[in-house]
């Protein structure tokens, strides 16, 4: 048709107009393609990150719970309910052909104490005193004495700066106690009554050195063995997995490095990483800040060194610094004053000489950690649990968000939760009566088992784990019952023995599944569509009348899951803006060209072209432009996506790593991307053609005569 011919000819003739409009359309198409592939890839990889690390595809929580489950945490929303009949639920849901596994869960955060160096040293001193090893007592005592001196010095400095009035009475008393413990007379009299001295140090002084050792850890209490198998992103880094059915704690490697590692060492690591990325100390303010901290926080090192270690480190530092300076504080300060020239040498020296003589990690593999939680009833609970090792979520090890979880066994989790149903309590009482186990003095037993922290527990809320174990699985009764018996029979020194028993006790699958959980993750089989899986699970829930609510991972991961939505909104908005701008520019340029062609159009009208034919001509022109330039933009966008899809895009920060689910980002365009981009470009073009086309339609045949008069 001649109109297409005219349209094409016009495009070729008005090259500048076509270039501007075409450029915009290409850009718009490109933007849509890139944006869509970016978002859909982020969506895909982030879903992999979240689904395969902790959320599963679907999360279950109690129906009608006050708060909606939020895996990544939301302040003040902990009333997510309880799931009591997990065993039954698991059996039913795992019977669905779409479901691969159901993993019980409970997510919480607690304060964890670990690695107070003074505590560790005092324990060593107590052991040495008990063993009567005078030489060892002397070595350790001198170290403790120096730690007290440093503590005293630090508190005095603190006193100089802070307002005395604002100190709590406890704090004031603490300062007085530390000053007292720093007097020669205290140490001169140590041998006369070592245990009294030790008690004073343990009860009054150690708490003043606390703070650095306090960690807030977020953990998922779960069936650790199932968790490890179901979430394929999970992999051990140090240590060993928690043995199946046993109690234990695994620390996320990211958290372990970031929070548990010796602060000075950690800062040196960070400087090293930053330098490896190409930064220079001389020009990087953050590195300078770390160096400043390392210099002022020299105590982090000196505090930990006993006499022999101090001598070794002092010699090494003097050698490195070429000085005869004897003051360790000044030596460490000078040593930590690194620059681009000497950093690598000092870093190596630190790890060679200093690191082996300090506690590099506050909590080490095999240590017993103390977890202080607040139970659901509001009282504090304290449990001790063995740290088996560190793990990471594969590909996400550098991501802060994926590093948000640590792993705790389900039994310990339940202890911390301190939740027991009325039914359970009745059942236990009944079983206890049947099996003839004596009523435990639970308040004192707990105190003996877990130390002072549990002393405030109220009787009815404590979890009767050992008793429960005995009750539910009669075959295990002797093993479970014996530590209980020991605990009641010989109060005092048996706490450790009991803890050992508890630590190595293997719980059966029935025990793990039998207790209360707060949520459960459902992992679907590969290639099962999430919507289908959701529908099946919901149907089953309805059929079995389970008091459950199913959330897909996106809903369950709260704000983090909605992040894709936010990016979508941002992209949609920028595309909208680009389109708006394109619309205005294209419209403007077409109006100009319409005005230029007024006489031509008037002539066509005079010769006999109907209005709609003029409109059609404009639409054809717009359509051709949209198709041609849209296709170019799509092709360009597709090539770019294909290029990066093949070679990957380096994710250079934690957030990017989280989004891309790995160290490299591989964008991919969803199948519907190209048609969507084409249609969008078409719509924009047609809309921006409307006004000029309307103008053109209004041109009368008179316009052809205008210059004739």
């Amino acid at each position, binding site marked *: *048709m*001649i109109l297409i*011919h*005219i349209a094409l*000819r*016009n495009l*070729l*003739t008005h090259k500048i107009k076509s270039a501007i409009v075409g450029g915009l359309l290409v850009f718009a198409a490109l933007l849509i393609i890139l944006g869509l592939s970016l978002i859909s890839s982020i969506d895909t990889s982030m879903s992999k990150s979240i689904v395969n690390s902790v959320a599963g595809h679907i999360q279950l929580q109690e129906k009608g719970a006050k708060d909606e489950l939020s895996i990544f945490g939301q302040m003040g929303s902990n009333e997510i309910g309880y799931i009591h009949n997990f065993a039954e639920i698991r059996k039913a849901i795992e019977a669905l052909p779409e479901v691969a596994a159901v993993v019980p869960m409970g997510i919480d955060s607690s304060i964890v104490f670990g690695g107070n160096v003074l505590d560790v040293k005092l324990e060593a001193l107590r052991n040495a005193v008990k063993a009567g090893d005078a030489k060892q007592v002397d070595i350790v005592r001198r170290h403790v004495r120096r730690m007290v001196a440093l503590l005293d010095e630090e508190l005095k400095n603190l006193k100089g700066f802070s307002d005395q009035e604002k100190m709590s009475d406890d704090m004031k008393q603490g300062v007085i106690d530390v000053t007292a413990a720093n007097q020669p007379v205290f140490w001169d009299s140590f041998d006369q009554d070592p245990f009294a001295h030790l008690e004073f140090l343990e009860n009054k002084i150690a708490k003043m050195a606390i703070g650095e050792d306090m960690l807030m850890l977020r953990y998922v209490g779960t069936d650790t063995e199932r968790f490890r198998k179901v979430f394929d992103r999970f992999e051990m880094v140090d240590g060993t997995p928690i043995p199946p059915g046993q109690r234990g704690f695994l620390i996320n490697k990211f958290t372990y490095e970031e929070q548990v590692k010796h602060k000075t060492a950690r800062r040196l690591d960070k400087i090293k990483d930053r330098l490896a990325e190409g930064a220079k100390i001389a020009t990087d303010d953050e590195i300078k800040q770390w160096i400043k901290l390392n210099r002022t926080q020299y105590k982090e090192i000196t505090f930990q060194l006993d006499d022999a270690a101090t001598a070794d480190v002092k010699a090494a530092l003097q050698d490195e610094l070429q000085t005869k300076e004897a003051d360790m504080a000044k030596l460490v300060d000078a040593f930590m004053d690194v620059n681009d020239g000497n950093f690598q040498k000092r870093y190596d020296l630190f790890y060679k000489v200093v690191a082996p003589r300090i506690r590099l990690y506050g909590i080490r593999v095999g240590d017993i950690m103390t977890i202080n939680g607040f139970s659901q009833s509001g009282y504090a609970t304290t449990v001790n649990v063995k740290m088996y090792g560190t793990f990471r979520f594969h590909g996400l090890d550098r991501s802060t968000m994926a590093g948000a979880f640590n792993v705790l066994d389900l039994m310990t989790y339940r202890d911390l939760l301190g939740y027991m149903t009325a039914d359970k309590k009745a059942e236990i009482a009944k079983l206890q009566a049947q099996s003839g186990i004596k009523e435990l003095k639970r308040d004192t037993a707990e105190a003996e088992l877990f130390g002072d922290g549990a002393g405030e527990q109220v009787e009815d809320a404590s979890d009767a784990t050992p008793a429960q174990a005995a009750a539910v699985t009669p075959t295990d009764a002797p093993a479970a019952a014996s530590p209980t018996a020991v605990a009641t029979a010989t109060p005092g020194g048996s706490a450790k023995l009991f803890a050992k028993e508890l630590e190595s006790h293997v719980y059966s699958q029935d025990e793990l599944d039998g207790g209360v959980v707060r949520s459960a993750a459902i992992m679907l089989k590969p290639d099962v569509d999430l919507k289908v899986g959701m529908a099946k699970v919901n149907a089953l829930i309805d059929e079995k009348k389970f008091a459950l609510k199913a959330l897909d991972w996106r809903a369950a991961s709260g704000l983090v899951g909605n992040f894709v939505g936010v990016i979508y909104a941002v992209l949609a908005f920028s595309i909208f803006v680009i389109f708006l701008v394109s619309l205005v520019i294209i419209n403007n340029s077409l109006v100009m060209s319409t005005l230029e062609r007024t*006489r*031509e159009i*008037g*002539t*066509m*009208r*005079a*010769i*006999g*072209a*109907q*209005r709609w*034919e003029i409109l059609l001509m404009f639409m054809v022109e717009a359509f051709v432009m949209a198709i041609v330039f849209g296709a170019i933009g799509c092709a360009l966008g597709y090539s770019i996506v294909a290029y990066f899809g093949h070679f990957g895009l380096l994710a250079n920060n934690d957030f990017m790593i989280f989004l891309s689910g790995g160290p490299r980002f591989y964008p991919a365009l969803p199948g519907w991307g190209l048609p969507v981009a084409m249609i969008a470009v078409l719509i924009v073009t047609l809309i921006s053609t409307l006004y000029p086309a309307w103008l053109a339609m209004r041109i*009368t*045949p*008179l316009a*052809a*005569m205008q*210059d*004739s*008069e």
Partner: protein
Amino acid sequence: MHMATTSAPQPIVHLSHVDKDYKLGAVTVSALKQVSLEIAPGEFTVIAGPSGSGKTTLLNLIGCVDVATRGEVVVAGQDTGKLSEGDLTRLRLNALGFIFQSFNLVGVLDAFQNVEFPLLLQKKLNGAQRKERVMDLLHKVGIADYAHHRPGELSGGQRQRVAIARALVTYPRIVLADEPTANLDSVTGTQILDLMQELNREGTTFLFSTHDPHVVSRAGRVVRLVDGRIVTEPDEQSQSSHA
């Protein structure tokens, strides 16, 4: 040349008591006053008059690109005042041919396509028929060799020949030409007039406006306009005296 005799056939154009007013702000300007005119088939008529006398307005009314304020304009048997926009357009397409002062060819189409354009709008002929008709006309106006040249590659005279071919391609009842030689040099203008006169002899009715005395002298009939009025009532046999 066909003469308009007393036994004249039905006129192609019939105007009776036509007024055309333009509103210029608050002032109403009368462009045509009480114009009555008939054009019979085969005429070669010139509307003459100085600038602003209403020549183009009159041509526009006859050409169905404008409507009269008062009076009756009948073109090819149709009262244009009663036709819709679409019908007027169809009337232009099928009954009228236009030749413009500035040629008004479509710049992006070559000579052949420009001539073919009205046939495409008519949708009556197939491709082969169109080609035959177009080439026939291009031969007749003497630029068949330039069929595939675009207007930009043609001289003014050649362009106007293309425009004439375009005006004739639909076998219009009448060809309206608004100062067809105004943008041409005198030699070329004469050639174009020769061509139009030859086509008139072959049966095409022409009505054109001009203020060029040379063109007026070639006219079969002259309608003189001054200030929107016809001053010389065309006496039946006053034309062709100088032909």
